[in-house]
């Protein structure tokens, strides 16, 4: 607080560097956590378990990437879980009804984008606060998923679909590959395309962006649509893994995704966030869960550890980096 304007070195915030000082901090955090668990848990650093961690982190990473873009644009998307649920039950019921796999996937991703579009329109055109819009759609979308299925899971998803999202290539799970590709695309969007600049600009200073001719509404809507798309993609991965789609799927996904983005350096004030950081953040959370489970830590203490690690991760980051 002593010097409110002192800030990080210029380099770290250069938009051109693909791996910033901030990201390095997150990476160090991850390495620390892995090192601690490696000492405590035999088998933690086995290839099999590391792949497990990646796979277990993949859905959160996918959701968190969309969340990161929304957060960068100055918004937040609390409705990712129910969006995933809607798209999961739609895809699954189309598959069960015998529609071809591509049709079901397109429909599922499409409805996810539609959910995002509604959020985006309410935020950008109607001008409501993102938190409250997506709090409202959180309930609304969940209710729609429940009503559509009567509350029942949709079972019997065919193997053709499942193997697409649940198979592996050379030992690497498809879900990990999919999310890696998505991360690359998100990185390109953020770093290399006009829309990425627009997201950063709108989140950084909306009014100045407007005066500079940035299409504010379009930019915000794009962020929410991408978030909806990635929520739907996360749902596909999950349906592939579970072989079933449930209307109550995706419970509390938003908190995990926000935590991953924040650990990775996104600022909830907007205008700041990193694709690499978010991925690392998701892996940190995944590694922690995995490690605590392998250590057979009791549920209450796992909860305690989750809370403390979020706090400690942010504090370490704060100390190593100075006020962000």
């Amino acid at each position, binding site marked *: 607080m002593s010097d409110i304007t002192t800030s990080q070195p210029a380099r770290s915030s250069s938009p051109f560097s693909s791996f910033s000082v901030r990201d390095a901090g997150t990476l160090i955090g991850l390495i620390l956590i892995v090192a601690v668990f490696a000492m405590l848990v035999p088998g933690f650093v086995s290839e099999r378990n590391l792949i497990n961690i990646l796979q277990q982190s993949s859905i959160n990473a996918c959701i968190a990437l969309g969340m990161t873009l929304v957060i960068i644009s100055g918004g937040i998307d609390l409705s990712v879980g129910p969006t995933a649920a809607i798209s999961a039950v739609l895809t699954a019921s189309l598959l069960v009804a015998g529609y071809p796999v591509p049709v079901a996937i397109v429909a599922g991703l499409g409805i996810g984008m539609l959910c995002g579009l509604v959020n985006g329109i309410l935020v950008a055109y109607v001008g409501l606060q993102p938190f409250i819009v997506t709090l409202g759609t959180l309930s609304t979308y969940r209710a729609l998923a429940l009503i559509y299925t009567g509350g029942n*899971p949709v079972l019997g998803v065919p193997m053709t679909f499942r193997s697409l999202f649940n198979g592996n290539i050379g030992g690497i799970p498809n879900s990990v590959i999919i999310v890696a590709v998505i991360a690359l695309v998100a990185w390109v969007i953020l770093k290399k395309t006009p829309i990425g600049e627009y997201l950063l600009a709108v989140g950084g200073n909306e009014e100045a962006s407007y005066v500079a001719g940035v299409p504010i509404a379009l930019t915000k809507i794009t962020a929410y649509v991408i978030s909806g798309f990635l929520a739907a993609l996360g749902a596909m991965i999950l349906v592939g893994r579970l072989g079933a789609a449930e209307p109550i799927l995706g419970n509390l996904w938003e908190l995990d995704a926000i935590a991953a983005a924040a650990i990775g350096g996104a600022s909830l004030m907007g205008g700041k966030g990193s694709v690499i950081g978010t991925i690392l953040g998701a892996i940190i959370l995944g590694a922690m869960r995995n490690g605590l489970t392998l250590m057979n830590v009791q549920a209450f203490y796992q909860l305690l550890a989750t809370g403390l690690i979020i706090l400690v991760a942010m504090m370490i980051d704060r100390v190593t980096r100075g006020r962000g």
Partner: protein
Amino acid sequence: ADLAPLNSDTEKDRIDWSQLEAKFGAFPKLPEGTKAGGVSKTLTNEYWRSLGQGYEKFGKKVGATVAYQAAQSEGDQLGQLTIAEGMVTTGYNVLLVSPQTDANLQPVMEQAKEAKIPVVNVNDAVIPQAEHYVGNVQKDNGVRVAKWFIQNHPEGGKVAIIEGQAGVFAAVQRTAGFKSTIGEDKKFQVVASVPGNWDRQQSYDAATNILQQHPDLVGFYCNNDGMALGVVEAVKSAGLLGKVAVFGTDGISDAYKSIAAGELTGTVDSFAEMTGEVAMETALRLVAGQKLPRVVATPQALITKDNISKYSGDGVDIRAVLMKDAASAQ
């Protein structure tokens, strides 16, 4: 080759817990160092903690190591999956899982099958592909309470249901059992069936509102005991204690206390600890190589002030009591 999707309430290939020893002999010898892993829904509810105690009790009895873990909160589907997957990779010989939902532990079923680890689905949500299920008949919970009303209120009347979380198997089945049974008696009328979301406060508020609109209500059926205890408070503060019957489900110790104190009318006890013992016995018999029916049904009983002393108190051997119940039912 695939098994038909399991419906634990109707599956034909079943056995009552009391028959295990009779049909499959005394407990067989276990391989050295047998490790059993229990994955529960949550530890924030006494029911699931008692279940774990049952696991451990039986495990200790026969010399198996038992680990019992739970997701961080009810509804944490992926967290629970992570736990179960961890147990498969770290070499447990058998898993006892109580899934958050019907589907969220499906991948574990596949991984376990590959690793030749038997998986026993214990209570609540039912995995369609489960090869082994131990638990009570969820629907029967509601049926028992409905029957009580029909017997004790021959004149009929208004009843209300406080439901658990929307879309959860146990909540859906319990509610359906109550509704269909009480619906057979035309003198009863279900005036409200509203969500309490397993939450005491929400159930309290819902009950207050229902009572205010229907002060002549005959009784409540609640999908679990926590909600029922909230409803009891609402009934008390409406000054209707004794006039409005309140039933819960699960048989947690607080429910027993409340029944003994003359507040809660009754609960359908599904004997969590016993269920745990039976489940562990089933699981370990599988490890020992026995072939068992797909469903092992566990005991349950409607506990009211009239019969509470039979099921609780010092020196009550619950196993013996339930064994006797089972025999007399046969």
